[in-house]
């Protein structure tokens, strides 16, 4: 199969994720968009690793997964806390740092 397809799929996934982050207000859904973007990146890493016959890309994909896992833990904890205090999971409601 042509390797281009993988890159296109990664680009599509990234675009879907980015759109989700920009357009949705629910923090959980925004989080899922972020995950999607990260995994699109992972897909691109693995694809190029295969293309170049170099394992660096694959190693980096593992790093991304580890970071993503940590980020989910912290991020979800924050979201839950915010929900408890403000009774809302909308990212637009959290604007205390407005200048």
């Amino acid at each position: 199969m042509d390797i281009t397809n993988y890159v296109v799929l990664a680009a599509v996934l990234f675009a879907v994720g980015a759109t989700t982050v920009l357009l949705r207000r629910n923090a959980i859904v925004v989080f899922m968009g972020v995950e999607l973007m990260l995994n699109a990146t992972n897909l691109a890493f693995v694809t190029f690793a295969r293309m170049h016959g170099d394992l660096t890309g694959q190693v980096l994909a593992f790093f991304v997964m580890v970071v993503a896992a940590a980020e989910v833990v912290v991020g979800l904890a924050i979201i839950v806390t915010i929900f408890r205090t403000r009774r809302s999971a909308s990212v637009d409601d959290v604007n205390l740092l407005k200048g």
Partner: protein
Amino acid sequence: MNEVIGLAPWLVGFPLIGAAILLLGGRATDRWGHWLGVLASGASMVVAFILMFRMIGTPVEERSVDHHLWTWLSAGDLGVDLGLRLDPLSVTFVMLVTFVGTLIHIYSVAYMDHDPDRRRFFAYLNLFVAAMLVLVLADSYLLLFVGWEGVGLASYLLIGFWDTGRPSARENAVAAKKAFVMNRIGDMGLIAAMALLFAHAGALDFGTVLSDDSVGAMSQATATAVGLCLLLAACGKSAQFPLQAWLGDAMAGPTPVSALIHAATMVTAGVYLMVRSGAILEAAPTAQLVVVLVGAVTLLFGAIVGCAKDDIKKALAASTMSQIGYMMLAAGLGPAGYAFAIFHLLTHGFFKAGLFLGAGSVMHAMGDQTDMRRFGGLSRFLPITWITMGLGWLAILGIPPFSGFWSKDGIIEAAFIPVEGQPWRAWVFGTVAVLGAAITAFYMTRLFFMTFGGRRPRWTENQHPHEGSPLMWWPLVFLGVGSAALGLVLGIGGTFTTWLEPVTGHAEHHEPVLPVPVIITATLVVVVLGALLAFRMYAVNLVPEEAPRGSVLTRAARRDLYQDAANETLVMKPGYGLARVVQVGDRDVVDRGWSVLPQAVSWFGGVFRKAQTGYVRSYAAGMAGGVLVIAVVVWLVVGLGGAQ
């Protein structure tokens, strides 16, 4: 002399230890603190007597002794040894300070009996005695300066002694501050004089600086500058024109303080400085002339002010100023005047301390009333005070054979001695001195008869005047006897002049422009006339209880000839104005100029702040958009580069 010289440091040591115990001991020493103060001063007096009798028994040429204690400063070229100089001049002062000081200590035990802070009072008095003795015993200008500042501090503390912090005591605090600040102006003069002397001679001890070699090598300009700086110092300390304004207000302190510090001893320190520095003044005729002028102006100034004051202490303060004017005048006349300046200082120390303590006794009897218009007819109720103050009164008038006659007459005669090339001087200063004697007679007689004479008392209600305890009137008796007899004992045959000769030098005999008997007679005539005028006005005629409006001169003299107004207009207000200009300049020019910078930063901050919307999604859009723009740019650049 050498066997007892080791005792000299104890002169200072006793009162200093006394002050230290009383100040550090605090309330624990309240019960017996005043007796410790008396003891310390008395011990110092005993040492003074021993030293004086030893000195009398020593041949004349061996009477000046420098007692080296230790090396004080050793910095490069400047080496100052701490030492005491004992000579007839300093021993005279030591006797005056310790003897009158001890009498006043004893008097204060009774006078301050009801004051809860009596112990603190005695601590300050002891501190004063110690500092004054340092001043007169110092063998260098630098050590003299230590004593000079020490007496200034003690004077400040004692003028403000009754400053309890309550609004009613504000007068005390203001008077203390006024004295302190005006004295600082004089102190600058002393510091400047020391700097000049050090630059010239490379030393500050009297032995080097005042030696013939050092003074001979001095240029006329240097000598004049040093002389004038020393005069400024003397003016500040001795309340001479134009730094005289503080002395009247200083009467806010307790009366024994006025007697000891602001009449008998501290205020005469300026005269001591002039006489001690006589060698320099003699090398600078201009400075000498200024000294005489200052003395003459002050002697008339104080006398005129004294005529108008109704407050008994302020009248005495004005009189003190005037009498020190006499001493200054004499000190500016050269060797012919030095001995009489010190002689008058000594007799004045006795009769003025006696008059002040008498005034304190009157105030004590009249419930702290100081207005002489509310006294009158007190001679029957306060016989001892009446007689002792009477002796002081006759002494200050200069009636023979009382002490003031011997000293003041000497000054008047010296003022009439012609100066080569300036024939006007003898006439002008001689006349001023005689005129001053007449006015002195007027205001002192006024004071005496307003207090003790008069046909009917003008007391306020519920007054029961009575003599104080023996502790109060015994010092009065001693000082009264001194006022009466001291001049006769020391003056007859020039005993005192001969005694001081090792220090002041031998004065060539010059004839005054008028024959001596004529001067004496003229002086006595004007003195009696002045006294008779005052007797007629204040003893024969009734004294109104409310001060009449009076002439222009009387009103001016009541306000100290507008000295405060003059000081405020000429010095204080321009000073305030300058401070205000500097303050406004700092705030509106310097500060405002620099505040442009933070204002600009703040403005930019305000602009950029708007970028922070608080919406996470707009930040994300910004990042995504930015990355997109970068990607497009990179693609275009790299793509176009690749195409070439």
